[in-house]
């Protein structure tokens, strides 16, 4: 069965790149534009893994991750954070919020898929 990935990013460019990369790698992809929409979409999507940006309007990545981890049904889903900042501070905050791992932008397809494979069965 295809693995289902939920991506949350406010940039159309990045959303499209994720879509192309994930579809080419044989994933089913669902997308949301910010944390608020991400939490809404999550309810019916039942993804295997979530890939989220940090800087987003309405609800940022940290808030979104906390939201997922508070959700009884989905709290165990692996969440990968897309970040241009590779510095420890951002990673640390994402981790404290409950992120499973991270992908440093600009991502290449191999890095992205590799990270997803690492956190999913």
């Amino acid at each position, binding site marked *: 069965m295809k693995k289902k990935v939920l991506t949350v990013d*406010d*940039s*159309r*460019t*990045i959303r*499209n*790149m994720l*879509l*192309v*990369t994930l579809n*080419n*790698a044989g994933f089913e992809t669902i997308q*949301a534009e910010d944390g608020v*929409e991400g939490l*809404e*979409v999550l*309810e*019916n999507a039942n993804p295997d893994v979530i890939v989220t940006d940090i*800087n*987003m*309007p309405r609800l940022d990545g940290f808030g979104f991750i906390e939201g997922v*981890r508070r*959700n*009884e*049904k*989905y*709290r*165990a*889903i*692996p*969440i990968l954070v897309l970040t*241009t*900042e590779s*510095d420890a501070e951002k990673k640390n905050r994402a*981790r404290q919020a*409950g*992120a*499973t*791992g*991270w992908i440093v*932008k*600009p*991502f*290449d*397809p*191999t890095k992205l*898929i*590799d990270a997803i*494979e*690492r*956190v*999913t*069965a």
Partner: protein
Amino acid sequence: MDMNEIKEIFFQECEEQLAELESGLLKLNDGDRDPETVNAVFRAVHSIKGGAGAFGLDDLVSFAHVFETTLDCVRSNKLEPTQDVLKVMLKSADVLADLTNAARDGGSVDESRSRTLIRELEALAHGEAPAAAEAPAPKPVAAAPAPVVEKPPVNDEGFQPIPFSFGDFDDEPAGHYVPTVQIDFKPKKDLYAKGNEAVLLLRDVSRLGEMSVYCDMDALPPLDKMNPEEAYFSWKLSVTTEKGEDGVRSVFEFAEWDCDLDIRTIEEDVVGETADEEEPPMQPVPFDLSMLDEGASSAAGEEQAAENPAAAAVAAAETASKVAQVASRAAENAKAAAASAAQASQAAAAGQTIRVDLDRVDRLINLVGELVINQAMLSQSVVENDNNGTSSINMGLEELQQLTREIQDSVMAIRAQPVKPVFQRMARTVREIADITGKSVRLITEGENTEVDKTVIDKLAEPLTHMIRNAVDHGLEMPEKREALGKNPEGTVRLTAKHRSGRIIIELADDGAGINREKVRQKAIDNDLIAADANLSDEEIDNLIFHAGFSTADKVSDLSGRGVGMDVVKRSIQALGGRISISSKPGQGSVFTMSLPLTLAVLDGMVVTVAGQTLVVPLTAIVETLQPEASAIHSFGASQRLISIRNSFCPLVDVGRILNFRGTQANPVDGVALLVESEGGGQRALMVDAIQGQRQVVIKSLEANYTHVPGIAAATILGDGRVALILDVDAVVAASRGQSLRQDISLAATG
């Protein structure tokens, strides 16, 4: 979708982000300290950087990076966004826009400018931020992120799965030293809470090389005392891998904070010893991945598992952990079911807007135009054929007409856009010209959410840019002079948009010196535009600046010079079906007022007959209509005639004669006079034979389908299927003057 399409999307998005950036910075400039404003500004630059990185646009990335770093200082309150800081940031936004354009269209950017700004931004990030040491140091331009140069292969065949196979390690050449790494791994419960999974980590370690594993289950309590959230197992692993300790550490990259982890390399000859003496009994165990991987690898795993009894122990350990998880998930699921039902209804609220290709909207607008024409034709033929008078068909037709009109309005609304983006671009124009002229200028925009058809907006930028340059360059005085005059040394340019009676009115006001009428008058005389003794009203003098080749600046400056004057502005406004006028008060400034149609697709027109031809006169040009009386007509010169209206004289223009529909002038008393407003605010009476009615017509371009016809603006199709020409009122009036302004103005003076 391929990379090129995504790149196109990226540049579209950049434009939106740049607009967002600029409006955010301007808000900050006005004293807005809402954290969300700063965040939005930061996000805009951040997004551009992220996308640019994906496409290997290094110049853009490195500039955005420095910009973002400085913005981050503002965001974290390390840097106060003072006017001076914002000045640098607004300039940086301009350079970012230039870099984006250069990345899209090729071409180059003023490098010295961007280098200077990078230095200024870095100085802000360092100098005024005491905690700058903690902040990531801005990279110098040269140190642009290198890896992005290689374009990631994201196209169809670009994805390369990571091959792995258990067999690989059997083929290792003998005698080649491969380090063995020993790992003590005890997950904490946080590791699971964050979505990491011990079994996946073990799987990844097993992919590095030959692995042996021992699971310590001593801490596992009896089932009734077991907390499903807790972590009870710990593992001791040993793996022989080429990748060594670093390779193993990278497996635990995501997990290392949430577990006790000890990774060390053991010398080959010591392995056995250590295992025997200090560690629990350990033997190489092929790790069974069948539950994780599909296909070939699973078969291989099972085969090996059967051969080695120790595998059973591991499998048992895993099963235990799985059981615990399944149990906990089941409990969660039950609780979540009710919550999810409640939240499902909220999900539908997402998605307020959609993006549509402009071509599709244009096609829809064209089709609706055809529909309007078709509906008019249908009405007409029903009226002609229906002898019984009223019938249900007529009622149906009326409803159809109303619906058509509503559809048309709704479709037009789709293409309506706020003038905001154009106004925002003007902010940049003002900054640039203020910089060059050394003047201090404040741009105030009002009504930027006023909507107008996109085609009008697109054509508005150029004339507006030119007028703004003129206003700052020629209108505003130098700061010293303003101060001497008792004015605020900072000049103000006010750009306003509003709707008025079906048109959009755009006003550009400055508080500068106003029109120097003496100078304008002298210039006009020098350029042979008016007679030296012409008696002109202030308004008429002011309007002289719209004449071709007119420039009052003593020296042609770099900015508003270039031989392009207000005449070009006026022509482009007229090409949009608009009018422009000026009012000026010496010492207080000038106001330019533009009135534009809301759309270029339809127009309300008066249908008239001229020499047997049907013409449409745009309603907006018509001030009033009147039936001339013989006593009001006065002859003047050889062929000119005037009509007296309420104690003033107005030149009479025979449309049929001007358009060469007939050889001689018609008798004005037999026709109708349309009083129209023409260039320069003067009025003309256009003579037509009869008025047929007033209706909305769909504009069909003549240029696109035939060729330009002097005196005719466009064409339309009437209800009876005939083509009618739409009169270009200003062109007809200009033709009536025979290009001789001097005679014209003296005429006006006579009146």
